[in-house]
């Protein structure tokens, strides 16, 4: 895609994953100003949109880690699961319509985002430490999806069924490789195993953090690695690339 290409407000909204109204608000506040054609019609230059969204990862990380959470555009915040579910469905449709990736990849990327985001709700239901809900943002042009929550994190969730778990790395290892559920005695909780199998075998990259644990799966097919990292994420933080 050429970066100098110009798009109208509706297309720009789709590419950024926000509503047209949000773009108008951003224009008023000076956050993102479109250019005007001679006929005074608004248009956005793709290059500007790309630059504007460079900070999705940072915004998600700030949501996951800051003592005082940043103000989020409403499009990036899903307080309740039903809002998340409808936004994932919308993303799937937009990915399909973009025509840039295969139907199979759309199906799998949507599965991964859906499963990770839904886990945040399922594992923190009634137990959100302070602010419920998740950060969920995507950029189809940049092929990136960012999810983050301010929940209890994987270790504390899993300790309910595996009291002997002591480290975040151990907890992530269980979450991504063993069939277990944080909601015992139900024999459930295999979503992240599916996520791992997909990301390891397809052109999908994953970064997933919880506590001081870090899971990485390369964009090109390759094995998952789990290790300790700097900085603590009390809940979870995930970047999906495709």
């Amino acid at each position, binding site marked *: 895609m050429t970066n100098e290409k110009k798009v109208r407000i509706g297309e720009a909204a789709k590419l950024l994953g926000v509503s047209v109204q949000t773009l108008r608000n951003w224009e008023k506040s000076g956050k993102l100003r479109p250019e005007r054609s001679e006929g005074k019609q608004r248009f956005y230059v793709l290059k500007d949109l790309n630059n504007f969204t460079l900070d999705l990862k940072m915004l998600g990380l700030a949501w996951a880690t800051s003592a005082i959470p940043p103000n989020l555009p409403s499009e990036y915040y899903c307080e309740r699961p039903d809002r998340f579910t409808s936004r994932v469905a919308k993303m799937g*449709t937009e990915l*399909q319509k973009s025509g840039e990736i295969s139907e199979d990849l759309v199906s799998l990327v949507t*599965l991964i985002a859906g*499963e990770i985001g*839904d886990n945040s709700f*399922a594992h923190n239901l009634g137990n959100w430490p302070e602010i419920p809900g998740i950060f969920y943002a995507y950029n189809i042009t940049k092929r990136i999806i960012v999810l983050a929550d301010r929940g209890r994190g994987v270790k504390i969730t899993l300790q309910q069924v595996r009291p002997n778990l002591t480290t975040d790395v151990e907890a992530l290892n269980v979450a991504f490789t063993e069939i277990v559920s944080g909601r015992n005695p139900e*024999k459930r909780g295999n979503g992240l195993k*599916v996520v791992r199998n997909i990301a390891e075998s397809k052109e999908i990259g994953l970064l997933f953090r919880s506590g001081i644990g870090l899971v990485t799966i390369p964009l090109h097919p390759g094995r998952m690695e789990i290790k300790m990292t700097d900085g603590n994420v009390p809940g979870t933080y995930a970047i999906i690339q495709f």
Partner: protein
Amino acid sequence: MQTIQLKKFGSVLVSRPAGLEAFNAVRPQLNPDVPIQIDFDQVLTVTPSWLDEFLTQLTDYNGGKVELIPTKNASVLATLPVLAAARKDFVSATVLRAIERMRE
């Protein structure tokens, strides 16, 4: 044979509560004595949580008489092997039969 077309519940099927809700919505129309087949046609994505919940409810309801219509849906194909390995019950049996048929 009764057929459930999953597209009736949307093209992206996410979350365990939504899987339960879908089952509850379709249950009044089901006869527990007649086998059920599930059609994934025109569904973009089914997550493992949704499918696990939906199949668990359905197979509990009619004693495991549930079959999956062979599909090329990538999300379903990615989910089935893990479901089969995770479960040791009707769900596992249903999923293993489907995998076997799709290999043929």
